[in-house]
């Protein structure tokens, strides 16, 4: 994958106005490569020729005004858009050298490697234990009861929830507070040991304290996972993201490391959005 880097630098130099690679010097491994991605809902085009490289073990934030396609793009990465019948997708989404949208790519296998956390906490209406243990058991990652318990504890610890729920693992997941439910959903996602975790505005339904907890968590989790998060909150992007992509009307206007994008945006649109002139 490192072999891609020089080629990308070349493209970056030529593709003015549509930069899709980072321009810092640090060397990160490529996780997901997107080329010329177009998406239509029926006749309306929602994504317009996207090109972007997403790097491993980093937090990448996708920002932009409402309806700019950032959530739609996020759902392309684990093919959740398949659930919407009118969607048509063209272009390349490549993970580990494999085309995600290829006919022979099983979306179940893909989603095993690309976990997702949704906007509204949506734990299964089962016990806290079952919420975490269900997916690993389904994927045959664990079978024995003892292994399950170990894995549930590890996932809940990684999600920073263990101390709060260790005495009530068999109470329903829906009995937790909103912030705890969201961390339970994160535990559920990391329990299957994915490579990538997609987060679709994970804190928009939460209070500021729960939000801060989740942000701390993202910072810890990026040591193990590639995190791609959609956010409406620019302060949040500035706080947690290593890289930030600015979306507008289905296009990626600017993609850079977060510090550069926020302090020295290259495009007028990004600057206007970041300074709060619209959005």
């Amino acid at each position, binding site marked *: 994958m490192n072999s891609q880097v020089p080629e990308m630098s070349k493209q970056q130099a030529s593709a003015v106005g549509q930069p899709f690679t980072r321009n810092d010097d640090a060397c990160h491994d490529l996780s997901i490569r997107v080329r010329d991605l177009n998406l239509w809902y029926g006749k309306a085009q929602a994504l317009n020729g996207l090109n972007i490289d997403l790097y491993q073990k980093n937090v990448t934030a996708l920002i932009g005004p409402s309806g700019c396609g950032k959530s739609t793009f996020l759902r392309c990465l684990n093919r959740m858009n398949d659930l919407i019948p009118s969607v048509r997708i063209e272009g390349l989404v490549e993970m580990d050298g494999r085309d995600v949208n290829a006919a022979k790519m099983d979306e179940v296998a893909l989603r095993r490697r690309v*976990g*997702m956390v949704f906007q509204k906490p*949506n*734990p*299964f*209406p089962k016990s806290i234990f079952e919420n975490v243990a269900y*997916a690993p058991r389904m994927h045959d990652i664990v079978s024995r009861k003892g292994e399950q318990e170990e894995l549930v504890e590890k996932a809940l610890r990684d999600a920073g929830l263990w101390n709060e729920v260790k005495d009530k693992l068999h109470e329903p997941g829906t009995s937790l507070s909103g912030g705890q439910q969201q961390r339970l959903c994160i535990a*559920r996602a990391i329990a299957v040991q994915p490579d990538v975790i997609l987060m679709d505005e994970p804190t928009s339904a939460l209070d500021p304290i729960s939000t801060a907890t989740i942000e701390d968590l993202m910072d810890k989790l990026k040591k193990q996972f590639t995190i791609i998060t959609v956010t409406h909150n620019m302060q949040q992007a500035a706080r947690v993201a290593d890289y930030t992509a600015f979306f507008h009307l289905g296009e990626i206007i600017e993609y850079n490391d977060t510090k550069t994008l926020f302090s020295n945006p290259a495009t007028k649109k990004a600057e206007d959005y970041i300074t709060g002139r619209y959005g």
Partner: protein
Amino acid sequence: MSDSYDQISQQLKSRHRKSTRLKYMSMGALALAGAFLLIFFADMLSKGLPAFKQAMINIEINYTEDAASNGRAAVDQDLSTIISRSVVRVIPLEMRNDPSLLGTTVQRWVLASANVDQYLKGNPVRGLDDEEKARIDRLVEDGRVEMQFNAGFFSRGDSKMPELAGIMSAVVGTVMTMIVTLGIAFPIGVMTAVYLEEFAPDNKLTQLIEININNLAAIPSILFGLLGLAIFINFFGVPRSTPLVGGMTLALMTLPVIIISTRTALRSVPESIRHAAFGVGCSRWQVVKDHVLPLAMPGIMTGSIIGLAQAMGETAPLIIVGMVAFIPDVTASFTQAATVMPAQVFTWSGEPSRAFVEKTAGGIIVLLAVLISLNAAAVLLRKKFERRW
């Protein structure tokens, strides 16, 4: 210029009047419906409750030589006209089965004839003359004639003798028919709904199927009977009048109800649960089996029970497949002739004898009791498994 406060309250007055009027009209409608229900129940209970009591006579039975051929010889001649014919009819049979009875005398409570029963219940009776009435009155004073709980009504099958007629064969027939109905309609209905709701693409064909299913629920039930006759009996040769063919016919009728209620239940499962399940890598079938169906199950069960209750009260299609029949013996298998409760009520309502009026009402009470308990079970199930998410 905006309206002054007085102008606004002027308008409001008429609006308030309208809403008050509407409120009283709704209350009136409710009261009317309640009154009808009350009248219905009162009438049915007053007619039907006597069916659960039956006049019994305490008589002496002499198992003599003569009685072995003619049962009438075993009882007092004065009483032979006021006890049920069924009593004297079984005496020779009893003696043949148990020869040691010969020469013994037994004092026993036996069924009184329907005329005595009706006379004691205060209904007009034609078959008794004044002398017999006087004799009955004396026997009542002596405590030899009594109204007792009519256990036979629940343990015996149909009979042409009203005092002997019971609802048991119809109850068993209903249970067996419902087993067949549910056994066919529940799995097929639920799987159909799951396919349509969770798997099928939304195109012209599935829309057509959906419209047809909705229409099927509104088809007059007698047409399902004709379909059952034409296909199950005439084409496939399923024996007529049996719980099997009755259950299959009613399954056709219940199917759309189960499909529609299952689809509603599936639709009420929030999309976020499906997203969560897909998000952790469930296949479509795992999403349905592990997450959607368990959540929808209370709704599916409620719908199925209501569909079943509807099928249980159905008579018209069963007339066509021959289940409205005189069935004195309790049915033992799915391929023997049987009848069901509403059909039994229908049969009794057509009997000329006065004593069958209370049997009819009694049958209705039993049927309604079963239906109300089924509906109550549906409500309880829903309450018990209702989940918030």
